[in-house]
Structures are given as structure tokens and as C-alpha cells.
């Protein structure tokens, strides 16, 4: 029978939006404020600009080498060893970022909603849900992302509507925060904010047509950056620059602050429901993608069988860092800074090699 379950633009859009736009709700914002103060809200835009040329270069290469996903394409260009080294670098940094992200989410849940439960229990529940979701396969992940995305959007619209009264636009001034140079530099260093866009190119060939993939990525990227900036803007305007710096989870502070009328006052659980669903899916996608990268690096056919070990090691990594603030401000900050040059350079390297080999001229 002809395939009826194929991924299209909508699924790609949903996947990318969930991967990147949910960053608005974790502690990325507070990470940015440390160095930029109230100018952090447009930092993602700078990061995007920094990363964009490399991204387009990568897309161009993928288009040239038809029907090959990221790792396959690297293998054709760089050959066995070169591709393995770069692929491993990508895998390891993604793996660590996922572990740290996982830890950060678990601590958010713990601190805000389950103060008495041990972190490992929450991490275990997280792991179980994510593992079984990922086991259903890439297509199902795509479908579910698409089904649930409207609900996430709805909840963020509700949140924006409720907070809009407390926004004081003048708080974005002074416009350059800690100073123009600092802000620009921070934007450049955090190019890895859009790491996921590079990672999802592993799924390049899993779509009905590759145009669907490209279209989905571009719309998703536009949407995510809008969402990120909107939310960061809200944080910057509801909290003054001195307060935002002290906040570890601005999203949750926001949901705790808003209320509907005077009768239903504590509605953070309402937002938490969608936030948890989104984070479950986010880590499901993440786990699947990095397992996929690993599997294709070593030509292992059954991705599903690798999910358990990789997920499990991730669980272990996520338990190691002792406290969330340290994790966020030290490890993750450093990791994000170190991966940016990798992301910017490897498409360029690929392009140069491909150009030297003359592959690009043939087609």
C-alpha cells in the first residue's frame, strides 16, 4: 500500500517550534540577562543573524547532495574519518546540552511544584515518558507535535493577554543594557541557541519531499524567533533590569504572578500543564534526534534499540550537577559558548571541501 503517513511542512514547523520556542520558558532568559541586563530580549535575534549564513550554507549543501541527511552528506564530502570526528563532536555537545537541559527542567519542576520529591524520581518519570514517546518513532513524534502545538500557542496567548496589563514598555530602556559591545558579543557567543536547527537536518530525508523540510524549517525558525523575542520582551518589560537578573525561572515567575480576575488567582498550574507537555515532547524530539545522529554515525539500523542506552546515560548526566543555578550559569553557559564556533565553522568546512572536490560543479 502507498504510504499514507508522511511528514509534511506542518510537522516540521511544529517540531522546530517546540524545539526552539520552548526555550522562552526555560532559564535561557535568565542566562542572557547575566551579561546583558535588560537588553537580553533581542539577543536571540543577533544570535540568529550570526548563525544564519552557516545555516544557509548547510541547506545549500544538503540540497546539492540530494537524498542524503546530515551525516550521510558529511560522509560523502569528508569521507569516513573526518565525518566521524565532526559528527561525534556534534553528538557529544548535543548530548551534553540535552543532559543539562534535562537537569534544568527537572529542577524547575522540583523547585516549583514538587519540593519534597527527590529529583531523581522526577528525572526518572521524565525519562520514562520521554523514552516511551520516542519509541513510537519519528513520524509519530511529528504528528503529535503538530496536534499539540495549537494548545501550546493557545496557552501562551492566554498568558500574554493576562500579563499585558503589567507590561511597562519603558523598561526596555536604556536600550543597550550593559553596553552595546557586551550585548553584541553575548549575541554572537550564544549562536548555539539555534543548535536544534542544525540537529534536525538529520531528518532531512524523512519528509515526503525535501522542500517540505526546508519550508518547515524556515517558517518554524521565523515563528520561533518571534515567540522567543515576544516572551523575552515580556520578561524585560514586566521585570526591571535588576530584578530579572536575580530570577532563575522568569516564565514561572510570570505564571505565578498573573491571575484571572480576583477569583481564580493562582493559575500557574494551568500553564504548567502545557509547559510540561511541551517539555516532554521537546526532550522526546531531542532524544530521538541525537540517537539518530549516533546511529547513522555508526551505521546502526535500529534507532529504537539505541534510545534506551542513550536516554539512560542522559539521565545519569542530568543527575550529576549539584545545583540548578550552577548548572545553568556555569556549565550551560560555557557549553553554549563553545558550541557556537563549531556550528558556524563546520558547514563552511564542508562547503570548502566540497568545492575543492568539485562536487558542487557537477550538478
Amino acid at each position: 500500500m502507498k504510504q499514507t503517513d508522511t511528514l509534511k511542512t506542518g510537522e516540521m514547523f511544529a517540531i522546530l517550534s517546540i524545539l526552539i520556542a520552548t526555550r522562552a520558558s526555560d532559564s535561557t532568559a535568565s542566562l542572557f540577562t547575566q551579561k546583558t541586563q535588560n537588553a537580553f530580549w533581542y539577543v536571540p535575534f543577533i544570535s540568529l543573524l550570526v548563525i544564519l549564513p552557516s545555516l544557509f550554507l548547510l541547506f545549500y549543501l544538503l540540497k546539492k547532495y540530494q537524498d542524503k541527511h546530515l551525516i550521510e552528506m558529511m560522509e560523502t564530502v569528508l569521507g569516513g574519518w573526518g565525518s566521524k570526528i565532526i559528527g561525534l563532536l556534534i553528538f557529544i555537545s548535543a548530548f551534553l546540552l540535552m543532559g543539562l537541559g534535562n537537569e534544568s527542567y527537572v529542577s524547575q519542576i522540583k523547585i516549583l511544584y514538587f519540593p519534597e520529591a527527590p529529583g531523581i524520581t522526577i528525572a526518572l518519570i521524565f525519562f520514562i515518558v520521554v523514552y516511551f514517546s520516542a519509541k513510537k518513532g519519528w513520524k509519530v513524534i511529528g504528528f503529535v507535535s503538530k496536534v499539540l502545538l495549537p494548545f501550546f500557542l493557545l496557552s501562551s496567548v492566554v498568558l500574554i493577554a493576562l500579563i499585558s496589563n503589567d507590561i511597562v514598555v519603558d523598561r526596555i530602556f536604556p536600550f543597550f543594557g550593559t553596553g552595546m559591545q557586551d550585548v553584541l558579543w553575548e549575541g554572537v557567543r550564544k549562536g548555539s541557541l539555534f543548535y536544534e536547527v542544525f540537529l534536525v537536518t538529520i531528518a532531512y530525508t524523512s519528509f515526503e519531499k525535501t522542500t517540505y523540510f526546508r519550508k518547515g524549517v524556515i517558517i518554524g525558525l521565523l515563528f520561533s524567533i518571534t515567540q522567543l523575542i515576544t516572551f523575552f520582551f515580556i520578561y524585560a518589560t514586566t521585570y526591571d533590569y535588576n530584578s530579572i537578573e536575580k530570577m532563575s525561572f522568569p516564565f514561572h515567575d510570570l505564571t505565578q504572578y498573573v491571575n484571572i480576575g480576583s477569583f481564580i488567582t493562582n493559575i500557574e498550574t494551568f500553564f504548567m500543564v502545557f509547559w510540561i507537555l511541551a517539555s516532554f515532547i521537546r526532550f522526546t524530539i531531542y532524544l530521538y534526534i541525537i540517537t539518530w545522529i549516533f546511529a547513522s554515525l555508526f551505521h546502526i539500523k535500529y534507532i529504537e534499540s539505541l534510545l534506551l542506552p542513550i536516554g539512560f546515560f542522559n539521565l545519569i548526566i542530568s543527575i550529576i550537577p549539584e545545583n540548578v543555578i550552577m548548572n545553568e550559569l556555569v556549565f550551560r553557559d560555557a557549553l553554549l559558548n563553545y558550541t557556537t564556533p563549531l556550528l558556524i565553522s563546520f558547514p563552511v568546512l564542508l562547503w570548502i571541501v566540497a568545492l575543492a572536490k568539485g562536487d558542487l560543479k557537477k550538478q
Partner: protein
Amino acid sequence: MTYKKLMVLFLFTLPLLTSCYDKIELEQQSYVVALGIDKGEDKGSYTFSFQIANPEVGSTMATAGSSEEPKETVSILGSDIITATSLANSFVTKKIMLDHMKIIVVSEEVARSEGFIRVIQSASRIPQIRGSVQIVVSKERASQFLKKNKPTMETRPHKYFQYMLQRAQQTGIIPDADIHRFFQITEGDADLFLAIYATTMKEENKTNTKKDHDYLAGEIPKQGGNPTQFMGSAVFKEGMMIDTLTGEDTRLCNILDKTVDMDELFVSFPDPIKPTYQVGFNYAQSSEPKVNINYDNKANHASIDVVVPFELEIIAIPSMVDYALNQDEQNQLIQKFEQTIEAKTNQLITKSQETYGSDPFYWSLYIRKFFKDVPAYEKGDWNKKIFPNAAIHVDYQLKRLTFGKMINDSKIEEVRD
């Protein structure tokens, strides 16, 4: 049934019997409605008072607890809120929950001390205390305030605080003073924060000297009802209380601050034509005040022009002067009103420039766009250098005048005939 099936069944029923980590039944919790903070005996220690709602009062179960008090107030010594809750469990039977807390009452003594910000700071660390909790400064000890407060209409204490503060904030006699705002302003380190001022004590001697809303809590001449009065505001500079403002001044602050919403304001002021009578107005702020700042970068000097557009509805003319149809008298009335309110505003601004050295209107927002980045802005120093020396001009502009649903009052002479 095989052994395996039994095991599965067992595993499924197990979580029902054990209590998971954060699981807690509703009846195992006590809900704190208001928290009071007083000075303890030694430095760094405080007395925390928890006002706990009694769930059995006001429920439909006829026999249950109808004779009990709707609330219980307990006080305990401690250094911060959370440890105090656990200590309080030595005589409160259930786990103390702060999620539904509506207000934090701070005694003036604590508010004026340096330690206040430390206590409040620790409150912001725990997710249980929301940003929307209102800060109330009480003239007496907070524990006394909470105990003496006996609303008769609302049996449940949280309803009382909710309605009371909501209504008082709508009329503008008390400021909007939630914790969120407190931290934004205090950490912003440029403006003054206004907290709600309240008391249950009555000042007997000052009663008849004042007019309209120019009262502080405790000064309002009244009879009957709850002894508690919410009126005016406590001024906080850098996290420490420095002064109080009357209800009228608080209103002016609310008018001039664009981040505060105010619904309606009933004011009365002397009739310009027959000064023995008062005219009653409904003042409505039609749009935000326009604050225009001209900032001179080199001299670090600012001149501030404030335009306040407003609408008036005349609700009472006991003097029977025909303001509705007589244009002259109407102009006189408007001018008088604008003059009076401008004079009062100028008085308040001068006071804040000279005495406080900072503004309670959150005007530092407007100066921000003249600075490129935060270090420059902090160097400019709004509250020490710019504001105290600024040239400020306030202009109230009437946009609309209405006369209620009646054009004219009945001719009293003809009625008396």
C-alpha cells in the same frame, strides 16, 4: 490468577495506599490568609503572625463549627517565614500553606527598620508567596492589627481583604502595592514605593481639622463598622519606610503614575461661588498622563512637563448654583478645580523633591530612553541628581465635563414656597 497478575495488581494499588512525596490531602493543610510581621525581641528576629481561615465556618454543613471563629491568628517568633511555619506546627495541627495568602501586614516599626527588606527578600525566594500579594503597613503591631480586624459582613477573612483592597484601590485612596511592584521599584533603585497604610487604632484628636480625603488611616471620623481603616500610603525609599502620605496625596500619585490603574474618584471641593458649600465630582482619568522630559546630557539636568488629561462628572451641587447652563460660572468652577489640584500636586512634588529626594510616580521610566546603556543610566542617578533638581511643571487639562443625568437641580426657592 497467576502470581504475575497478582504482582501487577499489587503494584497498581500500592501508590493508592502510600502517599507520594508531595501528596497532601486538602484537610491536612491550613490556609493562611494574611501574614503579619513584627519586631522580635532581639535584633534579626521577628514575630510572624499567621491568620488562618477556618474551613468549617461558612460551609453548608449546618452542625459543623457554626460556633467557631472564622479565623485563627497565631504568632510565633522566628527569623524567616518558612522556618516560622514549621515552628508554628507545634500548636497548629496542620501544614501551613501560604499559597492563598492575600496580604502581608508589616508593622510600621519593622517597615521603618533596615531589616524589612531582608524579611521580604526571603519571601520572594519561595514559590508559595505570589507576586500579587499586597503589602500593608500597619500603624500598630501587625499581630494586633490582624486580631483586632473583625469584619462583620464577610465571614471569611480572605473575602474581606480581597473586597476591601479591591474597592479601596479602585477609588485610589490606597496604592497598588504588590510584592512584584515592590521589588521592581526597590531594585530599580530610582523611585519611591508606596505601600498600603492601615490601622485599627483611632486617632481621636485630629478628627475635624481635615477635609475630603486628606486623611491617614485611623483619622477618618466614622461610627460603626469594622475598626480597621485602609487609607493613605507608606512611602518606602530603598526598601525602608520614610514617611506616610494621606489618601489625597496617594490619589495624586496614582493619577501621575501611568503604571497604576484607577477606576473612579469621588472628590469634593469648595464651591467657588458659594464657598460654604462643597461641590461633588466624579473624577475620571481618560488617558495616561503625558510626561515629557527634556534632558540635558551635559548638565545632567531635566525639565519635566506633565500634562494630565481628565474628565469630570458633577454629581452634587448642594449650593444650587446653575453651573450647567451658565458658561461663566462653569469656567470659574473648572479653573478653580484645576488650580486647586495643580497646587496640591505641586506641593506634593516639592515635598518629594526636597524631603524624599525621589519620586513616588515612577517617573524614572521616562528618563531611561535618554541613556544608551545601564551603566550610563546609573551614573546619571535619577533619584539623587536628576529628579531633586528637575524643573517640573504640571498641567491638568479638562477634556470633558458632564452633569450626570440631570441638567439642573430643582429650584429650591420654588420648592420651599
